[in-house]
């Protein structure tokens, strides 16, 4: 029987990793991720897991140790945030290119400077082309569920790509929620031990990470792309299987109230929950609004998004990151690219919000819904890109 336990988002992820019987964890503490590796070190110290816990001197070393461990066929987990992810940057590419199915929780936090420990997505978005599968979670339950599903996606012989499970710093990582916890046996049945396709083994030597020049590099990159194209179907398949034991279902995107909506807000992470509450209130007042939450960011679910926005007159896309000098935020840019070939598409406004953890309140969202409704009725975009609540 599943039980409900009060846990923070970070704690829920550590608990999920414990149930997934991780062989190796190499990590370095950084706020707001620290609770994950702290909790996990408790499990190791208490003898609750057989995991090899590698204490390293930096995130660069953490990810390097994870790559090394993964090439021996081990199930590997780590977690980081912000500057830590930035320090891992070069090894992130090596992990994905060497096809190491590492799972990493990224507790999204603003990048310095000015130094700030609170939530925005600039850490992960700065490494969004590193070849990792990237999923964004709305709450602690989703973070728990996603962590368990993610090992199965990453380690599938057709995929063999690393995955980041993203959750909003403090908002989700430190918020105490009632989390539905699966019994250990159920997780064990759902997720058998990893079976590596290739691994470092003294009795059957292979070389991993050899030099590869102009004559083969492109082909190796093409293989990675080929694996990425199979990810969406695998995420759905694993979610379906997970849904059978938990009753909780997850798609690549999640929509709310789109059936009769003329306008919608699209976002990643915890903001989706607030947007849904506001949308519900506005719908009751007769306003045709809806919400689109993007869960899988890499590979980008273009087809699902094209289908979801069909019939919408106006759409506001929220980006919790400042991509300085870019034509729009990363989510907005990708959605616009996905919609380029469509003849009918909504008027799209981009709102940059919540940098450095600034709160996205229900009132803010209500105003954004109303502005989007205005765009739809006027039939013209007032400001293609705006910054929410910045003082001048």
């Amino acid at each position, binding site marked *: 029987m599943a039980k409900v336990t009060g846990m923070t988002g970070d704690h829920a992820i550590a608990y999920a990793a414990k149930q997934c019987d991780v062989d190796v964890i190499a990590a370095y503490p950084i706020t707001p991720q620290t609770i994950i590796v702290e909790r996990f070190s408790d499990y190791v110290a208490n003898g609750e897991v057989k995991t090899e816990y590698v204490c390293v001197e930096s995130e660069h070393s953490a990810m390097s140790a994870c790559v090394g461990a993964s090439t021996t066929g081990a199930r590997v987990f780590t977690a980081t945030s912000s500057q830590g992810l930035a320090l891992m940057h070069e090894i992130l590419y090596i992990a994905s*290119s*060497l*096809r190491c199915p590492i799972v990493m929780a990224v507790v999204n936090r603003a990048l310095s400077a000015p130094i700030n420990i609170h939530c925005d997505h600039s850490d992960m978005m700065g490494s969004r082309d590193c070849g990792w599968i990237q999923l964004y979670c709305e709450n602690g339950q989703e973070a728990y569920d996603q962590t368990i599903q993610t090992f199965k996606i990453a380690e599938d012989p057709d995929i*063999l790509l690393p995955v980041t499970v993203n959750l909003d710093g403090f908002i989700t990582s430190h918020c105490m929620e009632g989390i539905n916890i699966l019994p250990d046996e159920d997780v064990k049945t759902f997720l058998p031990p990893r079976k590596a*396709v*290739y691994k470092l083994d003294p009795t059957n*030597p*292979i*070389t*991993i*990470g*050899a030099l*590869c020049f102009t*004559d*083969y*590099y492109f*082909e*190796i990159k*093409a*293989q990675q792309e*080929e*694996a990425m194209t199979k990810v969406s179907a695998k995420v759905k398949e694993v979610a379906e299987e997970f849904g059978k034991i938990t009753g909780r279902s997850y798609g690549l995107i999640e929509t709310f109230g789109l059936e009769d909506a003329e306008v919608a807000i699209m976002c990643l992470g915890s903001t989706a929950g607030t947007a849904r509450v506001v949308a519900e209130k506005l719908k009751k007042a007769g306003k045709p609004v809806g919400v689109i939450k993007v869960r899988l960011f890499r590979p980008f679910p273009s087809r699902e998004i094209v289908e979801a926005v069909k019939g919408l007159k106006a759409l506001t896309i929220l980006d919790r990151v400042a991509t300085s000098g870019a034509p729009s935020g990363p989510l907005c840019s990708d959605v616009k690219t996905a919609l380029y070939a469509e003849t009918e598409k909504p008027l799209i406004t981009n709102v940059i919000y919540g940098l450095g953890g600034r709160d996205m309140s229900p009132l803010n969202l209500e105003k954004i819904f109303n502005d989007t409704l205005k765009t739809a009725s006027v039939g013209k975009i007032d400001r293609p890109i705006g910054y929410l609540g910045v003082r001048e």
Partner: protein
Amino acid sequence: MSEKEKPGSKSLPIGGILVKPGSSTEYKTGDWRAFRPCVDEKKCTGCLICWIYCPDSAISRKPPVVTINYEFCKGCGICSTECPVKAITMMEEGA
């Protein structure tokens, strides 16, 4: 190997992994060489100092003299410098 003969993304092992050990012998690196060491068999005493010094193991013992494997020799010239009887001369490739 021509471009068409080379394996492509579908047939190569994933991630650039080399699944068979010892494949570096198939990678002929001697064509980097600008200067070629030439052994004067009349001078060579077979002392094997060059064989010890060669950083690429490109010199083989064939008593009473040594021979150089030009598929791997990169022409660094250490053998020529170390030879106590000056039996190895560096000759410019293509000259």
